[in-house]
């Protein structure tokens, strides 16, 4: 499992490197919410929200997950670690839900900086970014 994760991350990093022109040196992944969001979120809660199984936070308020762009290294790492699926599995998963009217995948909003900016402005959102990009405008609820 660990080996697979490393492999996925490596593959994703290489893909990222091609895009960015340099090997992305990111330290880890942080799951972030709006600073006013006081919910205590477990990895299972986060997974359920991102898989469309749960549409609200434990306090009952609406939860809206946002994804990074397809192919982003942080995204592959998040999907394999928190959602416990690889890139193909997550695509097949959403294909199954999408075409049965049971759910739609989270919106893609760009890279870590875009996700952070959106989340800083909207208490309903939850996303994940490169740990190095986390700052006081958002609250980190989970890190790996």
């Amino acid at each position, binding site marked *: *499992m660990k080996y*697979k994760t490393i492999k996925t991350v490596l593959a994703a990093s290489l893909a990222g490197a091609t895009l960015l022109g340099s090997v992305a040196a990111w330290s880890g992944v942080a799951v972030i919410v709006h600073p006013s969001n006081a919910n205590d979120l477990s990895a*299972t809660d986060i*997974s*359920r929200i991102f898989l469309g*199984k*749960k*549409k*609200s936070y434990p306090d009952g308020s*609406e939860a*809206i997950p*946002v994804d990074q762009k*397809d*192919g982003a290294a942080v995204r592959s790492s998040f999907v394999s670690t928190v959602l*416990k*699926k*690889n890139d*193909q*599995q997550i*695509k*097949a998963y959403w*294909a*199954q839900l*999408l*075409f*049965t*009217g*049971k759910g*739609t995948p989270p*919106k893609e*909003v760009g890279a870590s900086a875009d996700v952070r900016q*959106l989340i800083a*402005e*909207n*208490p*309903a959102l939850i996303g994940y970014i490169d740990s190095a990009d986390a700052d006081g405008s958002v609250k980190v609820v989970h890190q790996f």
Partner: protein
Amino acid sequence: MQPKLLTASILAAGLTLGATAQAADVRINGFISVVGGTTLSEGTLTNGNKSTFTANGPTNGVYDDDISFKPDTMFGLQVASNLGKGLSVTGQITGAGGEDFDANVAWAYLTYEFNDTWALMAGRQRIPFYLNSDYLDVGYAYHWVRPPTVTDSVVDDFEGLQFRRTGYMGDWDTRLQLFAGENSATTPSVGDLGLESILGAAYFMSTDQLQLRATYLTADLYLDNLSSDKIPDIPIIGPLWAAAGISQGDSNPIGISFLGVAARWDFGSSFVMAEYVKSEFDEGILGSGFAGTSGYYVSLGHQVGLFTPHITYSARESDYETMINGVTNGNFVASPLENSSITVGLRWDFHPSAAFKVEYLTRSDDSSADRLAANGNATEVDLFSAGIDVIF
């Protein structure tokens, strides 16, 4: 719960919650499977014809020994709109090669979510017979070119109501579906038939690695093309049935029941899935005597990078009745039709939204000697097929 349509507009505009969205966001998605195939080895029917392979029962997708791109080729367009406050609508138009791509409203239903737990779906929707029922037409969603034919019904959809309850039990996500409705369809294999008083339940539970499912339903099946006024026209035995007052039209339907259980386990890059199904008819269908079927499959796959080689074993038994209400039926052999098949295949995810698949299936007719004598080895066939599944 806040309307989800806000989400889309907020994200699109990159603004804050101040925005008010009145227009619903409409989502259009689609899928296409383009598949070609041919039988490579065939059994022989008693009339001398070669056996064929029915890839898609509801749409008459049948392969023979000429290469054909029709039986498994399929497109679908889905339009879904979230109207907010828990209300959404879903419509799906599909076209299948077996029906010359005539566009067909597969689904048209509205969903109302009472809360995070309960939802009601009303309209034309999929009957949850099988583990793969919900996305049977979306080739991209599974590893085969087509799911094992043991999970292929002559009727896929129904018009009615479905209550869905989703919840959690520890690490398990749970889903209960309760449904009721009816359907009528013209099927090439059975003729015009209808299902009335469909009443059923399905329960599904899953973790990251494990999926378990059970379903049970009952319904009344009637044959439109064999309604009492047409029976006497059937050669030889038609008059016998007419004289005995036998009808299986909608005034005298056949009670049927269906049971299915399934499991899937994903471990690392591998998976194993299995499903068992059994349908029982209170009496045999006029003409063929078909009185139910049971079968199962076990499938194993392993993902290596973008490639998923897989292997599936499946077996099926169909039962027949020679007498209906004391009158002889068209099918004079009581012993069941039995067959088993092995499928080996490869899925290649060559593109983020598309997969290439190639598959070889070999099926043997395992029926007893009297049935083989009556029908020939009618279900013996080898099939090669390859295709591309795309979602957009």
